[in-house]
Structure formats: C-alpha cells, structure tokens
C-alpha cells in the first residue's frame, strides 16, 4: 500500500508538472493535426486518410512520449530533484515505472487524437479497436522506454533532444509508416526490422486496414521484447551510472 501511494503520487506530480501543461496539450493536438494536414495538402486527391492513420498514430505516440520523458528525467537529474526520488524507500524498478507511466498515458492519448480527427473525415468502420488500443499501448510503452534509455544515456537536456531526434527521424522513414518497407533499398530493409516502431505500426496497419506484413504475434512479441530490454538496460544503467 505504501509503495502504491508513492507510485501514484510520482505519477500525479509528473502529470501535473509536465504533461498537463498547456504547451504539451497543444503539442499533442497540433502535432497529429499537422501531420494529417501535411499529407492531405501534399496530395488532396490521392491521400487516403485511413491508410496514413496507422503511421500518424504511431508518430504521435513516438514523439509525444520520447520528447517529454527524455527531457524531464534529464532536467530533474540536472536540478538534483531526481536524487530525492532515488533516496526514497521505493525500489528503482517501481520508481522508473512511476516516472514512465505518465509518458505512456500521454502517448496513448496522443494516438487517439488523429483517430478522433479522422473519424470526422472518413469512415472508420470495420476496425478492431481493441487491437488498435493494445497496439497503441505497446507502442507507447516501447517508445517511453526508448525515451528512458535516451535520458539515462545523456547528462544534458540539449543532448537528450539531439539524441532523441537522431533516433526518431530515421524511424519515420525506415519503419514503414508512410513508405512501405518493400520500397526501401534492399540494404536498408534489415535496419527496419531492428526498430521497434516497425512492429508497432504494422500492428496498427493490420487492425485498421488489414494490410500489415508481419504476423500479429511476432509484432506483439517483438514489442514486448524491445520494451523489456530497454527497461532492464536503462535501470541497470541508472544503478551503474547514477548510484556510483
């Protein structure tokens, strides 16, 4: 019970201090809207909102989670307020789960915005929404732990921004979000399969349009493996680098 009080209060504090601030809410709304609009303006007749929806949802989650988490943890560490959490009597695993839950929730909500916007423009019938939700949650968890990995790997806020962009922008083109993996040059295709977002976007493609290319089980399993690996690696790094 005591641990849960700590967990929920860390989550509540982060939501209030970071995620529910007007700039972040507006970022969450503007970012998916801008992406959808960009594709629509690029090709008003050819664009199929439903076809680009899995890609836009995946990107919204990726950017929403990594932008915030990588920066907030680095910032708290810099101001030494993170020490306060490390010195509290909760385990490091629970602490990091508490710190990441806010980003996961924020990511899931970010993914819902393009879906809600699309529902006003196109017919969204025959979609497995439970599957979409499960896929979005897993993408959010994996992207958040990727953000955690970034924040543990750097020491300055600007480094976190640079490092996350270095990872996120290639993912936009290599994970089959808008350009099919089969259209990529042959030497780049193996890279796509070592990036977690490939599997997340494929789940959403299968659930929304039925045109995913990887089996659902494989994608779910890969995301679980990626998220567990990133979490274990990050907490190990914290123990090694921050409790020296």
């Amino acid at each position, binding site marked *: 019970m005591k*641990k849960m009080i*700590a967990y929920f*209060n860390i989550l509540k*504090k982060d939501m209030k201090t970071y995620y529910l601030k007007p700039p972040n809410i507006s970022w969450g709304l503007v970012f998916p809207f801008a992406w959808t609009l960009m594709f629509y303006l690029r090709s008003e007749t050819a664009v199929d909102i439903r076809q680009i929806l899995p890609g836009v949802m995946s990107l919204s989650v990726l950017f929403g989670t990594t932008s915030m988490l990588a920066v907030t943890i680095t910032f708290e560490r810099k*101001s*030494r307020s993170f020490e306060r959490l490390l010195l509290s009597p909760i385990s490091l695993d629970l602490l990091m789960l508490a710190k990441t839950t806010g980003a996961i929730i924020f990511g899931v909500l970010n993914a819902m915005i393009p879906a809600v916007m699309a529902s006003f423009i196109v017919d969204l019938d025959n979609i497995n929404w439970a599957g979409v939700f499960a896929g979005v949650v897993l993408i959010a968890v994996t992207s958040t732990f990727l953000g955690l990995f970034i924040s543990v790997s750097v020491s300055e806020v600007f480094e976190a921004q640079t490092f996350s962009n270095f990872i996120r922008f290639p993912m936009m083109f290599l994970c089959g979000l808008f350009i099919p993996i089969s259209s990529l040059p042959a030497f780049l295709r193996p890279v796509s399969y070592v990036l977690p977002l490939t599997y997340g976007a494929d789940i959403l493609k299968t659930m929304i349009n039925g045109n995913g290319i990887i089996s659902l089980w494989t994608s779910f399993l890969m995301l679980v493996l990626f998220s567990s690996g990133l979490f274990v690696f990050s907490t190990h790094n914290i123990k090694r680098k921050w409790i020296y």
Partner: protein
Amino acid sequence: MEILNVEGLTKDYNGFLALKGVDFSVEKGEIFGFLGPNGAGKTTTINILTGLTRPTSGKISILGNDVIKDIKKVQENIGIVPDESNLYEEMSGTENLEFCASLYGIPKEVRTKRAKELLLQFGLQDTGKKKFKAYSKGMKRKLVIAAGIIHEPGILFLDEPTTGIDVESARQIRKLIFELNKTGTTIFLTTHYIEEAQRLCRRIGFIVEGKVIKIDETAKLLAEAQKEHIVEFDTDDASDVLIGSLKSDFRDFKVSRSSTGKIHITSKEKIDLMPFMRYLDEKKVNILEAKVLHPSLEDVFVKITGIEADKMKKDKEGKKK
C-alpha cells in the same frame, strides 16, 4: 545507544581513494558534527550512508539495518537534507512537502496535517501556496529541512544546512536544528562553519583526506584547547628574524606566526605580557595591539588538521558560487 555505526569504510573512485577506512558512530539523540575541508570525504560519506553511492568496502548499520544489504529499509527511517535545495521549482511549498511525504507512503490526510504543522513550525505558514522557485534562499533551505523530517525519521542527515544563506536565516535554521534535536531527532551534520559545529554539536569528528583523525565531545575538545594560553601581538615587524630571536630568548614558550601575520605566544601557563612588551620595545618593534586569545574549536581544528579554518571556509564558499 548507537544509532549509526561505520566500520572500515573505504571508497575507491577508479584509483582515487576518497575514503581510507572511516570509523565512527552516532548515538541516539545527539547532534554529531562531521567537519573537514573540501574534498576530505564528507559528502562521499553522507552519500554512502544514505544510499546514493556504493562503498568499496566496510560495514555500515543505521538503526540496526545493514546499509549495504538493505538500503531501502534504511531509507524508510532516515531524512536527508542535501547541500543544495533540490525541491520542485514549479510546485508550491505545501505541494512539495506533501509530495515528499507521499514517497514514504504516508496517507493523504496525515501528510496534509503534517505539512501544515511543519510550515507553521518553520515559520512558512504564509508562503505554503507560493511556488518553490519564488522562495528566498533561506526559505528554500527551511522547506528542504521540513521535507527531510516530514516522515519523522530516526536520524536526519544535514549536509551544509546554512551555506549560502543570509545571517538571519542561518540563525533561524540553527535554532530549528536545535529544537528538532530537543524533540528527539538524532542529527548527523556536515558543515564547514566551525562555530556552527561548536554551538550545535555534542560530538565532533574531524575528517581529513578520507580519514577520521579525531572524534570527541565538543566540550572535551574545547577544554583541551583551553588548557593552552595564547597571547597575540600585532606588530609592525613579524619577520622570521624576530620570530627566531623570540624563540631563542623565550625557550619556555611556543612562538609562531599566524596566517594573518601576527605573533602568537603559546604556553601551558598563564602568560605575563610585560617581558614580551619590553623585549619588543628594546628591539624597536612597534606593538599595535596585544591581546589574550581564548582558544575556540577553530583553533582545535587548525591544530588537528593543520588547515587554516578561513581557507576551508573560502574554498567551500568559492565552490558553492
């Protein structure tokens, strides 16, 4: 009864030995001062005791729990006030206190009540709704101390609690520390203000270059120092030649030059000023001032560590800036 016990504590930072076998203990209900110059190992020690740094070797127990094996159990019962005011800038004073209490699993109604009581006790009742970033340095330090005791710990670690704040706030904080101790909180205090340690601590440990070189009750340390009588002459000449001739002509006395360039005459017996005044007059040395010094803890520190207290203070404050 010992509440904290440290034996053979070492810390090796890739070949640099920050702690070289530190041993000491803290008794229940006391204020224990840990004094030493910059880089002596004070912060490394406090970080190891609180779980922020791993020791290379040694044994530590706090309230009967092994710090190395069961740090989370230990952290339930310790309060920590770091050398920087590291609460959350965007949260109010009350929110910060309640949040810190929640980290120890304290239920909502209890932490709200406790936060209110502490704000009142620390004279911050009118600023509870203000954001932490709007607090003055002194107010920030007070709130950080309040956050350190909100879960009513068995022992409170205070790392340089009055560094970098104004005189009045420092005085209020010293009063609060004293009051906290009176209500039963054991306090482990690191400070570079020797006068502060003298006023607050029942016992003091001196650490230099990673080794504890002396631990004793403050009163005993002072009594030992006050066995010596010191007379200080402020003269227009304090050259090596003059010091040398004083040494050879007054063999029963210890003659030295202080860091401020004054002549110090030390003896176990009471010193008669007249022979020295006559001697200096014969040597055509002008005496600007002559006074009897009452040795303080600062003198004990200088004697034990060989480090001038002023230098230590400047080093520390320079580092803070």
